[in-house]
């Protein structure tokens, strides 16, 4: 079965790239249109966004090692895929993320400490979905793809021009739910963008184990409009996502974007990737780093890179400091939190258990623990 580890990059749909790894601007007839109005300020924002979320990720890893978080799922390497896509979405487009879209949440205004509070284990959820238009994070692989379709159907019924986004990974495309989501989306021509970050791995499993064809090809078979982009090229991701949302907003049906990227870190802080991958592979992908690439481009186009870098670093420093202070002083929830929000309407069993447990705890008061 070793044949299954073929290099799926080799064939299939073309992969859009508008920045070479050296930072050269590559013309792209389909995507250039969406990059025509890019301003230096926007490019500076892309740089800042990616630098900041990379710092947030580094800080979260450190906090986890120090015992301040229970677990963390690093995003290192996927900054361009996440920032490029979310910056192309409208603020009222509704996002259904997995558990690794930290940059997406941050870009929508979720505070890093709120994001991390879930990983610290103090709360089930770090944000109000309706404040930032992002659904709760999803751990069950692929389940959210269907929610995105349902939401999109609601958009359609409402006659709105919003778009629903379903984010998931390459591994998720094997799940029944993701395939059913494509079936439903195609059937109803739902205004949804499936955004698949193919980071080459599902924990220890290479993407070639999930699929012998390009993931983008699969989506094509369901009748979805498909873009395959270099996920480490923030401009290509941005442009493809712009193109996708425009397509969807025109009522032309659902879109699937495969962003080809790489998970540079461990799957989670509980994972040991040295057991299943090589330094050579990492080196190959280090050379494709999304932030470096944008830096090189900015340099070549004569932007004031030092100023942009300063701005980015300052924002990153600020976030890191705030985050650490907030997390290390974050209190544990009290026992009553156990019983909150299980139901929206009163429920006698939960009421009785709450009362009983709190009374029981009260009997220990004044005793040594």
């Amino acid at each position, binding site marked *: 079965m070793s044949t299954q580890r073929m290099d799926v990059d080799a064939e299939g749909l073309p992969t859009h790239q508008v920045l070479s790894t050296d930072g050269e601007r590559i013309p792209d007839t389909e995507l250039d249109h969406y990059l025509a109005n890019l301003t230096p300020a926007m490019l500076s924002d892309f740089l800042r966004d990616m630098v900041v979320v990379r710092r947030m990720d580094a800080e979260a890893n450190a906090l986890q090692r120090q015992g301040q978080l229970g677990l963390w799922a690093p995003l290192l390497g996927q900054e361009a895929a996440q920032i490029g896509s979310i910056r192309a979405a409208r603020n009222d487009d509704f996002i259904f993320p997995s558990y690794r879209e930290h940059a997406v949440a941050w870009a929508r205004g979720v505070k890093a400490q709120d994001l991390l509070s879930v990983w610290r284990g103090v709360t089930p959820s770090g944000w109000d979905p309706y404040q930032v238009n992002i659904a709760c994070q999803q751990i069950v692989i692929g389940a959210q793809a269907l929610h995105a379709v349902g939401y999109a159907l609601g958009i359609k019924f409402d006659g709105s021009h919003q778009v629903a986004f379903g984010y998931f990974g390459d591994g998720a495309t094997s799940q029944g739910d993701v395939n059913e989501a494509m079936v439903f989306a195609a059937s109803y021509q739902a205004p949804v963008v499936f955004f698949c970050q193919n980071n080459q791995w599902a924990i220890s499993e290479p993407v070639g184990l999930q699929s012998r064809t390009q993931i983008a090809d699969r989506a094509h078979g369901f009748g979805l409009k498909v873009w395959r982009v270099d996920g480490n090229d923030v401009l290509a991701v941005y442009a493809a996502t712009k193109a996708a949302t425009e397509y969807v907003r025109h009522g032309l049906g659902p879109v699937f974007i495969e962003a080809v990227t790489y998970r540079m870190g461990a799957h989670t802080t509980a994972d040991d990737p040295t057991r299943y991958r090589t330094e050579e592979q990492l080196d190959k992908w280090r050379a494709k780093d999304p932030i470096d690439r944008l830096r090189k481009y900015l340099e070549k186009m004569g932007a004031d890179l030092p100023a942009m870098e300063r701005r980015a670093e300052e924002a990153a420093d600020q976030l890191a400091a705030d985050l650490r202070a907030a997390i290390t002083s974050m209190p544990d929830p009290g026992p009553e939190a156990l019983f909150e929000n299980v139901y929206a309407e009163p429920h*006698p069993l939960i009421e009785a258990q709450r009362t009983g447990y709190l009374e029981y705890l009260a009997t220990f008061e004044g005793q040594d623990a």
Partner: protein
Amino acid sequence: MPTMIQALNTSLRDALTDDEKVVLLGEDIGTLGGVFRVTDGLKSQFGEHRVIDTPLAESGIVGTAIGLAYRGYRPVVEIQFDGFTYPAFDQLVSQLAKLHYRSRGRVKMPVTVRIPFGGGIGSPEHHSESPEAYFVHTAGLRVFAPSTVEDAYTMLRQAIDCDDPVIFFEPKRRYHEKAELPYGDQWRDEAPCARVVRRGDDVTAIGYGPTVYTLNDAAVAAEDEQISMEVIDLRTLDPLDWSTITQSVKHTGRVVIVHEASAQGGLGAEIAAGITERCFDYLDHAPLRVTGFDVPYPPSKLEHHHLPDLDRVLHAVDTVMRRDEVTALGAAR
């Protein structure tokens, strides 16, 4: 007089009329009107955006309904038959049940999942299951099971109106029972709780859905033998209405619990355990269960053996009355 199918149809029609956020999803519910015709005529009345034929995938249906609820809709899902609930299990227990909790109360999940359940209609495999215990054990779901035509109407309105997800079990072998419907807003006044459908002094018989009819018949038959049965229709399986149950048991001291689902780990176990915890000093006999056996639902020519019938209920009643030394059947031995 309308049948239960018509009562459900009217209930859906009224809900669709009263609230434009109500939408129906399911296989064959649109053009065909559902395999049981519960949604008959609704697509032509409300349009294909309100009454939606879905692709053939239950996880897809429930997952899509969840997304619609995120958007502020109140979806009512039809699962064609009980045995086809399982492909949607993950969406039901890990998503639908937990999203209100997961979102710290910010996202409401007013989704009703209608499931025609139970046996007795001579169907092939997977068409006669009673999966209610799975959902009663799952925190975050409410579980309703009407037994009468009136309740079918009322409780479906209540389920759709409820801001929590409700798994709504319809007793398919009673689909053709007939009765007058409650009218107007009456459904708003009734709390969804258990109901004593017949007063009695000697034994409390507890059932829900299709077995309530059997219990009523048993009560009539028992009268001939001077045994007075109190019959309780649970109606809501989650939350369980312990106050109605314990009040009755404290009065009678004897309990028989009946359902079609297998005994082991069935809802009867919870009822029996809960009664014993709450009424131990009042009990004259252990609560007995009369249930389907712990076997896969059998081919139709065997189902009359599998389903609790009048005789098996009476046998259990006799046992708790200590008129019979043999232990009751259906329960684990």
